């Protein structure tokens, strides 16, 4: 009974973590990709400003981000009210509050690798494609995406891994509620607090293996695409 419970609650944390990371990456693809495209090809004057905003979560202490997010997510703000209207639930301490927070702090991890990969393609390639009769969207699908496959993969993997590992913001915004917002990182912290090193070992091991596998996939596929080019 005790073993089952042990596996059950932690298994839940693993599921929530994976669900959070995947959902976040899905929204990052929708928001971060156009942003990276804009930064790489379009913006001139607004670029330094936009880049600063996108990079901000990298340099701010997680507690600062967490604090501001709590302020913005609270039920008194327009955002908080709107979410309650939509779902009947408050945004703070909810799974979707966690997703929204993750999107914000993982944004630089999606935008930056993709942006530098797009910048390598260059404006001339876009112009060439358009002058041959392809619209901007056609060019994006048939030229930009295939040429920046590596950038997309890197963005996905790094954002995924970073979302999985974040602790401070997730604790502040999500509150570490069992079966709802308690992710692996928080579970490990709780286990260590309670001196249950066995459980901590198990979860830490899961994270270690998962992270290593992710990085191995990334570097292996990078190496393969390099070989193909040569």
């Amino acid at each position, binding site marked *: 009974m005790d073993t089952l419970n042990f596996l059950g609650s932690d298994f839940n944390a693993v599921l929530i973590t994976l669900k959070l990371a995947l959902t976040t990456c899905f929204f990052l693809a929708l928001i971060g990709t156009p942003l990276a495209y804009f930064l790489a090809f379009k913006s001139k004057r607004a670029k330094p400003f936009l880049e600063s905003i996108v990079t901000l979560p990298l340099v701010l202490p997680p507690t600062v981000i967490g604090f501001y997010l709590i302020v913005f997510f609270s039920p008194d703000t327009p955002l908080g009210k709107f979410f309650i209207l939509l779902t009947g639930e408050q945004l703070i301490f909810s799974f979707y509050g966690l997703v929204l927070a993750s999107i914000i702090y993982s944004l630089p991890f999606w935008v930056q690798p993709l942006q530098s990969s797009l910048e390598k393609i260059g404006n001339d390639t876009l112009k060439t494609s358009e002058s*041959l*009769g392809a619209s901007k969207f*056609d060019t994006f699908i048939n030229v930009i995406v295939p040429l920046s496959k590596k950038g997309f993969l890197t963005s996905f993997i790094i954002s995924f891994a970073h979302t999985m590992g974040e602790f401070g913001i997730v604790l502040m915004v999500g509150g570490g509620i069992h079966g709802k917002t308690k992710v692996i990182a928080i579970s490990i912290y709780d286990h260590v607090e309670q001196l249950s090193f066995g459980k901590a070992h198990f979860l830490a091991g899961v994270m270690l293996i998962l992270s290593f596998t992710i990085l191995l996939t990334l570097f292996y596929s990078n190496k393969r695409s390099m070989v193909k080019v040569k």
Partner: protein
Amino acid sequence: MITSLFVKITGYVGDFFLDFEHEFNTGGITVLYGPNGSGKSTIISVLSGFINHLETKIVLNDKSLENTKIFPPHKRPFGTMFQNPILFEHMSVNQNLDYPIKRNKSLEQTLLSKEELIHYLELGSMLNRYPQNLSGGEKLRVALARTILKQSDYLLLDEPMSDLDIKTKARLLNFLKMINKKFKIPILYVSHSIEEISQIADEIILIKNGKKIISGSVSKILNSNSFQRLIGKFESSSVLEGTLIKTNQLMNMTTLDVNGQSLIVPGRPGLENNIVRVRIRSRDIIVSPVKINTHITENELVGIIIKIYTEKNTAFSELVIKLMKSKIKKTSQILRARITTYNLNKMKITENKKVFIYISSVSIDRQAYQY
């Protein structure tokens, strides 16, 4: 049908003011010539729809194209090839060639088919290769074929051949002339190479600092004062046009008829009765007031000095000579000679005097032939 194109562009690009207007109606190859930074590439970008903040009027065959909302780059009837042409690295040569075909299916085929282009530009052996494995010249041929396969109404080529070796360049320039003549597709060719101009241009537009200086036929422009000033004194030259009379196979020399006078040039620049253009640098010409009765050079021409420019602060004078034998009143061509003012005074040459011109065939630029 001859394609007509009217272009007027006014406005600032950065702190550079462009004020260009031209009516293209030759249907031939127009060369846009000017020094770096004179606005040539900007004009190409405006025509292709990539610069849209300038005040523009573009009328192609009575159709107004300047609105980039209605005519964004991908809907413009131009086939543009930019400086340093780019192939899509993730596609094979064959897929690169199919790219414009797939996207312009509705257009009727007015130009060469893919198969013909593969044949003419010798792309057959590289169809399954990827751009990374092609040389610069090979890439350029593929890019050129791809641009032509868009089946556009007008080709815009922005200094496409600046990095090529002379042989490949001559071949591609001939190919461009061929498709221009055979398929009646007009070409706007941006260049700052005099060799390229003298080989392919039907019409030349000179631009400098964003303004058109002069435009007209090749011989008119290349021999004009504005052109000579633009290219600088060291490069000062003239272009002579002649009919190919015969080739001496044994000696590998060819005789041209230049308005009744013969000009012997090395090699075999064409077939009999072909019109051949030859560029002669002004500093390679020897001028004498009297006939020299030894064979010091292969060529002796006769002309009349129409203008002498003596440069202040340098040792040189430039003579503008009308090539003519005194009695025959044919349309004559202009030759420029550059000699020292020291020698000019010694020879007592003045305007309206008859002179003998000596040109060594060795100094005739083989690249400057038009085949």
